[in-house]
């Protein structure tokens, strides 16, 4: 089983799955907090248009989790 790391916690994934799909599969439903009301957000549109699922991958901020492929050992952080 391949894994990436979300804030220090290993998240398993199948090769070819997106980071968002792997997170949802692992029961993680939110990984971002909104600016104004500080509410949790995760995946909404699932196809790259809503920007709710933004996440930091290997130091690159604001990546769309629904489009970004999971990679072995990737260092992923909530934003």
């Amino acid at each position, binding site marked *: 089983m391949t894994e990436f790391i979300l804030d220090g916690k290993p998240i398993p994934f*199948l*090769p*070819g*799955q*997106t980071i*968002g*799909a*792997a997170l*949802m*599969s692992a029961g993680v*439903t*939110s990984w971002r907090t*909104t*600016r*104004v*009301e500080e*509410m*949790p*957000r*995760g*995946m*909404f*549109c*699932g*196809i*790259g*248009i*809503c*920007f*709710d699922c*933004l996440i930091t991958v*290997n*130091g*690159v901020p*604001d*990546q*769309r989790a*629904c*489009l*970004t*492929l999971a990679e072995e050992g990737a260092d992923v952080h909530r934003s």
Partner: protein
Amino acid sequence: MSTDLESISSSSIVIVGAGPAGLAAASTLTAAGRPCVLIDMSVRPGGQFWRHPGTDLVLASKTKENQGHHHWSAFTQMRSQLEDAARSGLLDYRPGQQVWAIEQDADKHFLLYLTESVRSQGAPRPAPVAVSTLILATGAYDRQLPFPGWTLPGVMAAGGVQALLKSSRVPAGLRPVVAGTGPFLMPVAAGLARAGAEHIQVCDANSLTGWARDPWGAVQAPSKGLEGVEYAGSFLRHRVRMRMRTAVVAAMGDGRVEAVRLARLTRDGSVIQGSEWEIPADLVATGWGFTPSLELPLALGTATRVDTDGSLIVDADPDGRTSVPGLLAAGEIVGVAGAVQALTQGELAALAALSDSGASVSASRRRKLHSRSRRGARFARAMNKAAPVPQNWSSWLTDETIVCRCEEVTHGVLKQMPTDLDAQEPRTLRVAGRAGMGMCQGRVCGFAVSCLGHREGGDRVAELTSLGRRPVAAPVPLAEIAQTPSQLQISGTGAQ
């Protein structure tokens, strides 16, 4: 013109979008020996309709590549043809790229500024492309209506739920409510059932008897009827519960969806008093038809009109020619009508491009396509009549309901916008109220805000256009904007 512009063959045609319409256009052009460039935001061709996993996941998940798909052989046939064309150099296929800005230069060339869909560190940015014939097939995304609780994790666009299943083989929930309106809710429920979800409820705000309003239109697309039969069988097997004239009027939960409130509706979408009840759910998949992706045609000043589903679409002739010479459009952006219709339109647009450049095109082939396209349009009209956005949907909102998810603008704030003559206009709600000014630039809330700001007698084309204009059509790092040496005026927000 910028100095780093990529020169492509002067006879090349650029196609944006590799869904059914774009693929059909590319197949038609390359079959005629015409070089083309196919730009697509996804890493694999197929668009939303034929979204599928890569070979690695097909093997790892022990599923078939075409699981849950219709008309798959049409796709694989085009795919292998285009693979050959790419090998021979006739097709320049650009997966994983988005057009973030578009304009015309003094010579009427279309200049397309490109960026990677997923940024990678250190990768060179793609050079802009100039071309004189452009076919846009940019597709559509789920149309959304806000409701109390829709910002909770676990509320998702129905198309996004489908995308997760199709490309990653992950069900977004195991106790889902699929809600909104239209036939597209059925494949989403069927896909979730196959993936192991239970107690599935499908809530359509309209009634299936809506088909009776135009039965003749409904039978124009017989394959749709067969798909319906297939879903009926799957729903029986998986005990999927279909509810007509029912909507999800609220989602509740602590940090994520745990329950939803359902309500029975009158014909105009008002809640029937005392009909509300709550059920547990871990997923709400919602969709109210589709919104065509009009960023690029609007940026080029293309003439538009409002379709029978209330969406803003490109006003094109039966061959896909738009009001801008050299610009053709095909698929959902000329009217949401599904994949089969998009295939026909993609082929027609390609033939028009060939014919406009002096190539001879078979008249009988065009005639056949035109008649197929008219049948498809009739079916789409019947579908739109049967599955309208309910007139009174906004009566489900409370003052606290967030309308614009990005900027967290509530219905209450929008209602308090100054009530002088122009203040309730959608454009005012966007500029002064900041609804539709966030990261998604109104893609998600744009339709809803246009309804909330609609005034009696207001021009719907203008109202929808004011929320559909996006000078920056896809997110780009600010450095890329700064480095683009062109006459482009960046006046909006949305860049990262």
